């Protein structure tokens, strides 16, 4: 097959037309002023909080998804420093900046569990089972080992065979109530993390 002049012109014309057509029709429309990523906090709920880590006590703002309506389970999607806070003025250290992963950590415990003596795994239990069991264990030991009077017959009202370590990040209210309860049991083996 050979091309004569006319045919050759045809080919050329078609090629040209085709390409310009493509250029017109198929070329991507340049998207101007495109917002690459949209701002995600536009309508989140803001809650004031305090960093639970060190004792600088940085102000936090928790941003949670949902407007607080009846049908929403607020979910915290972002945490940022509180710019009004006189100490941190909005800043956060690497620990505070990563707090979102604390709240949503795969290590978060979800329900009460018991590990039976000698066992190598957890068994899930209900809160009532767990708390009743603990109450029984506590009472049994206290009743068995409570010391009302010492050798010299002095009133001492102490209980030494069970101990309690208090949290270092629990709120003062929780700490106070814990102290109130623990002392009412006469417990002395009571301490917190102040030293370590």
């Amino acid at each position, binding site marked *: *097959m*050979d*091309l004569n002049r006319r045919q*050759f012109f045809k080919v050329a014309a078609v090629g040209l037309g085709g390409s310009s057509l*493509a*250029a017109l029709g*198929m*070329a*991507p429309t340049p998207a101007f002023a495109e917002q690459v990523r949209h701002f995600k906090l536009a309508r989140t709920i803001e809650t004031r909080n305090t960093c639970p880590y060190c004792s600088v006590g940085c102000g936090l703002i928790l941003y949670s998804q949902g407007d607080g309506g009846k049908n929403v389970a607020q979910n915290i999607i972002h945490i940022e420093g509180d710019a009004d806070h006189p100490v941190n003025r909005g800043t956060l250290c690497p620990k505070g900046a990563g707090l979102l992963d604390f709240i949503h950590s795969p290590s978060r415990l979800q329900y009460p569990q018991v590990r039976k003596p000698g066992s190598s795994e957890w068994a899930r239990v209900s809160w009532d089972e767990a708390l009743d069991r603990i109450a029984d264990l506590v009472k049994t030991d206290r009743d068995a080992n409570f010391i009302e009077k010492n050798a010299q017959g002095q009133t001492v009202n102490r209980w030494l065979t069970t101990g309690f370590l208090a949290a270092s990040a629990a709120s003062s209210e929780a700490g106070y109530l814990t102290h109130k309860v623990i002392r009412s049991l006469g417990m002395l083996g009571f301490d917190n993390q102040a030293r370590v």
Partner: protein
Amino acid sequence: MSDKPILRYNANERTNHWLVAILFILAALSGLALFHPALFWLSHLFGGGPWTRILHPFMGVLMFVFFVGLVLRFWRANYFIANDRLWLKRIDRVMRNEEQGVPPIGKYNPGQKLLFWTLLLCMLVLLVSGVVIWRAYFSSYFTIDSIRLATLLHALAAFVLVLSIIVHIYAGIWIKGSLSAMLHGWVSRAWAKKHHELWYRQVTGDKPAEPPINKKG
């Protein structure tokens, strides 16, 4: 003189050539899409930018593989011979379709031979540099500087290749009979005698014709 035609390319050779040709078109179009913004629309022929990026290197590698096939078939026919130098000197006459003083040449004229070796060189450069800038699999093994150099060489080789192929295609259009030769393999004795006389004599055993007085084309 007999008018029995001569088989210039057998079926395998033709197939091989057209495979390379098709792959070249695809690689070239996808390459050009990434080569200059004005041609980016070509990427839509391949299903968009990412697909163009994904397909181009595979098409390139395939083209190279088949091209190797051509090389194995034709490299011996592309040695330069004595006449070639004169032919090249008289290229202007060739361009003017004059045969006055244009020496007879073998199966391939020096232009075709030059093309052949240029293509081979370009293909090699394209392959090596192409591997270096192939992000999905290989780039991580090379330094940023070698990648930069490779990118430049790749573009350069591609440019030369495209240019050569344009010449090649036009030659095919210009020299009547060569396109059909590559399409169904046969050329007329007259065609062979006119364009590749030495080859013609070799394959037919004819003696050289007495010196012509003059010829018109």
